[in-house]
């Protein structure tokens, strides 16, 4: 086979190889959605983060607006300190309420922002004051059981 045909075939091979890599990155992966634009850091303190993990989504009104970048433990206050990277395009009011939610009954956990009405916006590095911890299913069930038991004891 002559040299130019080999070059043509190698060019074809490399081209479809790169096409496959692009397919994996864009269609299979999520390169298009995680825009590498500017982000700013926010922090929030929770009593209990449940099963929240690093890289979990931060959502507001169901739309992903950021990711959890770090989870630490504050040994003085015995609280979890969650650092987030939020998309620079979105600003949130100072009295935004950060909650830990679960998608579906057993799905993965994410942080939800419920927006308040404050005129001042959160700046980079600030700490969100109002938070609500993860709902621990076992606690919920035991509370329900105890309240049921108390109810049935009541009338007697």
């Amino acid at each position, binding site marked *: 086979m002559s*040299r130019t045909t*080999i*070059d043509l*075939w*190698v060019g*074809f*091979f*490399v081209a*479809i*190889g*790169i*096409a*496959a*890599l692009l*397919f*994996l*990155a864009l*269609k*299979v*992966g*999520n*390169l298009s*959605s*995680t825009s590498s634009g500017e982000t700013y850091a926010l922090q929030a303190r929770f009593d209990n983060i449940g099963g929240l*993990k*690093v*890289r979990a989504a931060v959502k507001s009104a169901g739309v992903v607006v950021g990711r959890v970048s770090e989870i630490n433990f504050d040994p003085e206050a015995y609280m979890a300190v969650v650092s987030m990277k939020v998309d620079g395009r979105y600003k949130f009011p100072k009295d935004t309420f950060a909650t830990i939610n679960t998608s579906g009954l057993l799905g993965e956990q994410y942080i939800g922002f419920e927006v308040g009405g404050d005129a001042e916006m959160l700046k980079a590095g600030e700490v969100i004051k109002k938070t609500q911890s993860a709902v621990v299913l076992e606690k919920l069930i035991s509370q329900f059981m105890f309240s049921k038991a108390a109810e049935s004891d009541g009338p007697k």
Partner: protein
Amino acid sequence: MLEIIRRLGRQITNRLWRLGFASRFFLAIILHSGTSLRRLNLTLREIYFTGVLSLIIILVSGLFVGMVLGLQGYDTLQRYGSSEALGVLVALSLVRELGPVVAALLFASRAGSAITAEIGLMKATEQLSAMEMMAVDPIARVVAPRFWGGVISMPFLAALFSAMGVFGGYLVGVQLIGVDEGSFWAQMQASVDVREDVLNGVIKSFVFGVIVSWVAVFEGYDAEPTAEGVSGATTRTVVTSSLAILAADFVLTALMFRGT
């Protein structure tokens, strides 16, 4: 009894000697790779022989592996009522593990054995010594282009394998069984991370490419210059590189996906 110990010792020293020679050989290839990059058409020719000619087997196996994953995954997932997660299962298992590993195993038996046989036969017919006589370094002229051809082809082959596999999973899952197409792709995109999963898969396939090419050229160069020696070397290439791929895969997986 003494004879057994003596034979054992001889085998161990022999293995160690070969390992040392292989490492020295690897360094020699790296040092001589400048010439193979300067004379690019030699390397291009090897990419053609190792990469382009492996395309058919890689694409067809990728398609079938993906289709089997689609069937098996659906069968298991629908018991838990989460058949929409089929896309995640197919994509993650291909991109992280099956793509690089199975493509490398196929590559070792398709291209690695051919490289070993070629270099071994060159040695048996004294072409390598003839080159040395003409002051042509056989490592720079014969070995390094084959090594780099394999190293360059491997990541592309693995990516093609994964892409074909995802397509096969899509064919079976969405077209044949009827999983919802939107959630198939959306859930896949939501849980496959470009850096964590796709890039790590590419790194894996690059490492496997180095392993397979290294073993193949070394076994060929080290083969006994007889017909028997060449056939033994070809077998050793497939066995050694397959074992090395699986062992390296464990190490790389332990390093990359330790679970956060």
